[in-house]
Every structure is written in structure tokens, then in C-alpha cells.
């Protein structure tokens, strides 16, 4: 009961924006390098798989493979950027740089710090999705004005992956453990969330399991919007993500408080 109470007592103030601003200042110092590295990788996938492999692949769901793949990569690159930030980035700030310790000696609370980390994670998803969108727009792969709403969806997707990543960081605060996070969590999500192929070809059980993948829902929405295939099912995907964010939101605060405050 006491644990439950502590779980929900989140002490946040407007100073969250100052914490977030700190991250933006740091980001602005080397944003060119950050961004160019980030769109390099999806560009490799687009070329190798979209164009190279795509030449041998039948159209999927009525569109050429390149068009099918591109929206999936928008979603996956965005959440990978967030996942890196909220594992390695968060951990380095917390453990090696003692940035959190410095912040909480001011009126900033530990919850403000964690909320700032989540916001920064969200920022990365939104920003990197925009960068990749710009690239695929230039390649003529964007088919619908619904695409303009993708940053809003990425806000939810980014929040979800920021929360998941900070939960991992809070549970296994160890730089080696992040390799496991990427090989056991992120890579399976990347491969089996409909980024590269529709899951309708796989067994019913796999399709059911995939329903719990947050990336699957994000990919559905992103693809639907970019290809202009918008229907009620996308609303359900969005609701799924929002509910997941709301349920999981208190957990990273609780774990990080438990870790830092003794």
C-alpha cells in the first residue's frame, strides 16, 4: 500500500522545462553531427532493402516494396533514437556525469529530472521522424497530407519508448545491460513489428503476440498516414499507445527515485 502511494506521488514543477532546456542546449551544440548520423542508417536500409531487395519483392498491400518499407523506417528510426537517449544517455548523465545529483541540489526535484529525460526522449522521436520524413518526401515516397500529423503521433510513440527505456535503465542500471536491451527488446521489436513485412503471413499466435509490441501500433499509424490509408483501426492503435503511456508513466519515476534517493 505504501509502495503504491509512493508510486503515484509524483512531484513535478515547471522547472521541468529548465531541465529540458538544458538538454536542448547540449543538443544544439552538435546537432548537425547527431542528425546526419541518424538519417544515415535508415538511408542504408532504404537503399539496401527498399531498392536492392525490393527489386525482387512483389508489391505488398498494393504498393511497391520501397513505399511499404519507408514508413516503417520512419517509426523505427525515431524510437531507436529515443531508446538510445533514454538508456545510454540517461545512464551517462546519471552515473558518470552526476548531472542528476547537481540538478537536485537546486529547487529541481528528482521527478522534474526524470520528466525532463522523458521530454528529451520525446523530442528525439519527433525530431528524427521529421528528418527521415523529409528524406522520404524528397524521394517521392510520401503519398498523403495525413503525414503532417505524424509528429503528433511520434509524441506519443516517443513518450512510450522513453518510458520503457528509462524503466530498463532504472531496473538494470549498468552500461553492459543496455546491450541486452537492444538485442532482447529493441531488435525483436524492430524485426517483428511490421516494419519490413506484414504479419498477416505469419501464424495467428505470432500475430497475437505482436499486438503487445508498441512499435507495431506506431508502424501501423505511420504507414497508414504516409500512404493515405486512414481508417478506424488507426484510432485503436493510437488509443493502445496512449493507454500504455498512461499506465506505465509512474513507473520510471518510482524506479529512478528508488535508485537515486537513499
Amino acid at each position: 500500500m505504501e509502495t503504491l502511494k509512493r508510486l503515484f506521488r509524483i512531484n513535478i514543477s515547471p522547472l521541468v522545462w529548465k531541465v529540458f532546456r538544458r538538454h536542448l542546449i547540449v543538443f544544439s551544440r552538435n546537432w548537425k553531427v547527431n542528425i546526419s548520423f541518424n538519417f544515415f542508417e535508415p538511408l542504408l536500409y532504404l537503399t539496401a532493402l527498399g531498392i536492392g531487395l525490393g527489386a525482387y519483392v512483389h508489391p505488398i498491400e498494393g504498393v511497391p516494396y520501397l513505399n511499404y518499407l519507408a514508413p516503417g523506417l520512419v517509426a523505427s528510426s525515431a524510437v531507436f533514437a529515443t531508446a538510445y537517449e533514454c538508456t545510454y544517455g540517461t545512464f551517462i548523465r546519471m552515473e558518470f556525469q552526476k548531472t542528476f545529483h547537481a540538478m537536485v541540489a537546486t529547487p529541481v526535484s528528482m521527478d522534474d529530472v526524470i520528466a525532463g529525460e522523458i521530454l528529451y526522449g520525446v523530442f528525439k522521436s519527433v525530431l528524427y521522424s521529421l528528418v527521415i520524413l523529409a528524406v522520404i518526401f524528397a524521394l517521392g515516397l510520401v503519398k498523403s497530407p495525413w503525414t503532417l500529423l505524424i509528429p503528433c503521433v511520434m509524441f506519443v510513440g516517443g513518450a512510450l519508448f522513453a518510458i520503457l527505456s528509462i524503466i530498463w535503465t532504472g531496473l538494470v542500471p549498468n552500461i553492459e545491460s543496455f546491450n541486452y536491451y537492444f538485442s532482447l527488446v529493441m531488435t525483436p521489436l524492430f524485426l517483428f513489428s511490421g516494419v519490413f513485412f506484414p504479419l498477416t503471413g505469419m501464424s495467428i499466435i505470432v500475430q497475437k503476440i505482436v499486438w503487445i509490441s508498441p512499435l507495431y501500433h506506431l508502424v501501423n499509424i505511420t504507414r497508414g498516414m504516409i500512404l493515405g490509408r486512414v481508417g478506424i483501426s488507426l484510432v485503436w492503435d493510437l488509443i493502445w499507445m496512449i493507454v500504455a503511456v498512461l499506465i506505465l508513466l509512474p513507473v520510471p519515476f518510482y524506479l529512478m527515485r528508488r535508485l537515486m534517493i537513499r
Partner: protein
Amino acid sequence: MDIVIAESLLKQYNGFTAVREVNFTIRDRECFGFLGPNGAGKTSLVKMIYGFSPVTSGKLTVFGMDVKTNIRDIKRLLGVVPQENNLDPDLKVLQNLLVYASYFGIDARLARERAEELLEFFGLKEKAGEIVESLSGGMKRRLVIARALINKPGLLILDEPTTGLDPQARHMVWQRLRLLKEQGVTLILTTHYMEEASQLCDRLVIMNLGEILVEGTPQKLVADYIDETSGQIVQEKKEQPATLEDVFLKLTGRKLQD
């Protein structure tokens, strides 16, 4: 006015008792020292004062406010120099001060004014645009102290401010701290350097294993414990006047504790 009042203050974590029901009072405008070997509980104690570490039991008030309920308001009035330098390595020297000021909600123009004053005061003006990593140990320490003053705190907490510094850098820090004290800032200092304690502190306590052993002015402690133990100390350090270090070693023992 008393700035800090601790009553039966207890700190336990993971089954370990770091601070054992201590009582002390820190007065306005004094420099109060916590002296003790490593592991005596000094850092645990000051971490409770700035709210990083929750109080297990007992009462701790700072500026008349309870740390359990008003920690944000308390922290607004504090400057904290932690044991480990935790400057923001992602930011340049001046930026470190400006960003830190923003955590206090200090307006950007005022922050810049104060930051420039502080860099001047601590002899870091030329380094404003440098990255933190390029600073020497002494400069980093001065920058941490400068950062702690950005909100014009009424109480400055210094956790081993000069550990690891060379004598020149140490003397420069001491001189700055004396100036601050003259300006009316209350200081809390933890240290295991006896000279530092006798140079700076008006009053101090000697701690060991989470307990406060004695309290008093440096002169009084030396006088008290010299009378009683003169034989022993004279025997060990022939012809040298007894110092606070002798009192310290007598009370905390000569064995290594960690």
C-alpha cells in the same frame, strides 16, 4: 537565529546506520565544521540538509522549515558544493553557471550578471568559453563553488571542498571562503583536514561512526583535550604544540576504518 537545527537525527539505509541520533545547531553567519575520518557519516549528514537523502527519523529544520515538507523552498536558499565535482561536462564554463541559475528560476539577464561576477571572483574569467574538461582540478573546484553561489545562498554547504587540491589551490579556496563569510554567508564544512577546520571553522564537531563525539571551537577542543592527555601527546610529538589533529586522532583512533 539558528539556521540548522537537528534533533535526534537518524539516517539508516540498507540496514546500515550512517548517522546515529545526532543533535546540533548551526547559527547564523558562522562557519560550522563536521570533522571525521572517511565513513564517519559527514556526507550522509549534509545530504540530509540539502534534501538529497531522506531523514530516517528525528527532526531537521533548515531556515525554520522542515526538510521533510519544504525541501524545494529550502533548496532555493542553499548553495551546495558536493564532494565529487559534478559540473556539466556537456556545457562550457559560463554555460554551467547560466544553466544552473535557470534551475533556480533566475532571470537570464541577472544570471549572466552574477555569473560574470562569480567568474571574476574565483579567477576564472578567462576560462568562460572553455570546456569544463580543460580546467585544472583547482579551477574545477572553484567553479563548483562559484556555481553554488549563483542563487546568493544564505547557507553554503561544502562537502570536503579542498580534498585532492594542491596547497596553493587550497589556500586560494580558503581565502575565498573567508571573504564569503565576511559577507554574511553561513558555511557548513565537512573535512578531514585539521588545518582546514582550524583555519575556517568557528565551531565544529568531531564525528566517528555516525556519532558526534565532541563539539566546540577549535581552540577549546585543543585546550580541553591537551590538558587531559598531555602526557601521551607530548610523548608522540616531542616539543611540538598539540594541534586539532592530535585531538582528532585521540578521539577517532589511529586505526584505518575503511
